[in-house]
């Protein structure tokens, strides 16, 4: 039983950092840069795939509950060993490459994708002093890496020489490119508020507390709007329902990785989830105060735990949405991106800029909120009038 003295708390919080430094002590000076890099990357390489495994199980069970069934419950107690089983299966499966496929591209596509997905984590501050590289323009780096994914997807879709995969790839790229703009613009708000592109300093800016409550950006009107918009765009970026057209089973069976099987398929699957975690992570970093505790009296809980808790919450949200919302149509998707998301994010940026110029106080808060609300109402009203965006009706078979 350890005593929760401040020093102990500090130790627990920084345990991984301390461990790394302790290990570095044994390494000769020549190899130190490389080793330190490896020691920083390794935890990421271990932790997130593990989370991925857990999440698959969570998703399947959650969806099961939502769809009023049990989900996996055979392997192991309550089916907890299901991820293992899946992993083993996908590793042992035969790796089929279509005869007409473009071998090299077909091979490199999943590799590039996974690399990109992992690269994105290098700027995520998982905990206090726990970031792989603290780039002075980390957010930019994150979005830049996001661009790499698109190329990978295209490679995958095109190299398979199958109309389904090509269509899926094209859909995916169009969608990701269209939603990248609102994603970046929505994220820009936090950067504006902090005045820095470095993820670490963004989190530190949010980690201060004004009695009990932290000043996370999500608690400001523009922050909240930005967070919502960002999450919508992120859902589209990571091709999840309701924006899962690229792999819409009912239309193009599995989209761009229809021709992949076995390990490569697993890689794609992994990359998808890693991408989702990464975008959630950046959302946490930008709006939910990264590893900072939600209440000042909870700061004794280690920071990384907070990060992963938030990540878990957002993941559950993703799953919930996936289980709830049906898929959009392509034109609806595009209309939504260009006619709603883009103007809204721009207005949000305007609001955030105005926020800087008004004196601190409830009045500023209210004014900003009213401005955004009015903008939202007017925009949706206008779009509904023009019939670009409409409330969807569900028609049940009767």
């Amino acid at each position, binding site marked *: 039983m350890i005593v929760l003295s401040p020093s102990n708390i500090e130790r627990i919080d920084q345990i991984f950092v301390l461990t790394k430094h302790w290990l570095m002590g044994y390494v000769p000076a020549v190899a130190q840069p490389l080793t330190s890099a490896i020691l920083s990357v390794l935890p990421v390489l271990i932790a997130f795939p593990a989370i991925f495994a857990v999440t698959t199980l969570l998703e399947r069970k959650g969806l099961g509950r939502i769809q009023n069934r049990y989900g996996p419950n055979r392997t192991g107690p309550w089916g907890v060993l299901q991820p293992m089983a899946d992993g083993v299966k996908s590793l042992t499966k035969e790796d089929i490459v279509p005869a007409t496929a*473009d071998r090299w*591209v077909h091979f*490199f596509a999943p590799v590039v994708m996974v690399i990109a997905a992992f690269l994105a984590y290098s700027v995520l501050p998982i905990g206090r002093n726990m970031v792989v590289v603290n*780039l*002075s*323009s980390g957010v*930019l*780096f994150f*979005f*830049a*890496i*996001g*661009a*790499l994914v*698109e*190329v990978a997807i*295209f*490679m995958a879709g*095109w190299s398979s020489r199958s109309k389904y995969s*090509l269509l899926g790839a*094209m859909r995916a*790229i*169009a969608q990701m*490119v269209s939603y*990248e*703009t609102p994603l970046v613009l929505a994220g820009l708000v936090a950067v504006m508020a902090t*005045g*820095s*592109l470095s993820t670490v300093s963004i989190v530190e800016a949010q980690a201060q507390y004004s009695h009990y409550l932290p000043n996370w950006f999500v608690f400001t009107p523009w922050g909240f709007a930005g967070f919502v918009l960002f999450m919508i765009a992120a859902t589209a970026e990571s091709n999840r329902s309701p924006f899962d057209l690229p792999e819409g089973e009912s239309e193009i069976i599995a989209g761009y990785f229809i021709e992949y099987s076995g390990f490569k398929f697993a890689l794609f699957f992994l990359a998808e989830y890693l991408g989702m975690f990464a975008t959630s992570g950046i959302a946490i970093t930008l709006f939910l105060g990264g590893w900072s505790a939600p209440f000042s009296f909870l700061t004794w809980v280690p920071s990384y735990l907070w990060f992963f808790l938030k990540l878990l919450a957002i993941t559950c949200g993703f799953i919930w949405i996936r289980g709830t919302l049906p898929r959009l149509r*392509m*034109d609806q998707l*595009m209309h939504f991106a*260009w006619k709603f998301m883009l103007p809204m994010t721009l207005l949000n940026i305007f609001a955030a800029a105005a926020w800087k110029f008004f004196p601190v106080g409830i009045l500023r808060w209210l004014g900003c909120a009213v401005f955004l609300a009015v903008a939202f109402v007017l925009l949706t009203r206008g779009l509904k009038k023009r019939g670009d965006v409409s409330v969807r009706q569900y028609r049940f078979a009767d």
Partner: protein
Amino acid sequence: MTLVFLLLAAITILGFGAAMSLRNPVHCVVGLTLGLLGLAALYLQLGAQFVGLTQVLVYVGAVAILIIFAIMMTRSSESAEDQTYSHSWRAGVVLALAVFAVLGWAVHFGSTSIPAQNVMPELPVQTIGDALLHRFVLPLEIIAVLLTAALIGAGVLALQDPVPETRGPR
């Protein structure tokens, strides 16, 4: 450092060379992407972090994707193998080599005088932002106008018969 430089230079040359020499346009685009990434890495190695990342964001994220769309829509990837190089490609290569020779001579001749800075220059993003909004505000505005014009023009050119995927090039 030199090792890193050689590695990146090799990657870049490899990528661009592939982009310019491969027969299949899609391979060319992949090569181009590789080269662009290498170049971006070179920028990073030179300490221009912001530029490098912008390079990736713009070129890989936008230009390469755009080219991909163009290829897809012009069906260039199914073009016959025999007509990838123009008849006078030799002349082109010769010319290029000549240019390289001249440039190399120029570099060799010119770059003796400049002393090499060993200190890595500091380039925070704030500096760039300030410069953009103070010293370079006029070019910035002009670029903004240019981009708008390009957006509209490209939209008008490309949207003659609207294809769902090609709405407004980014």
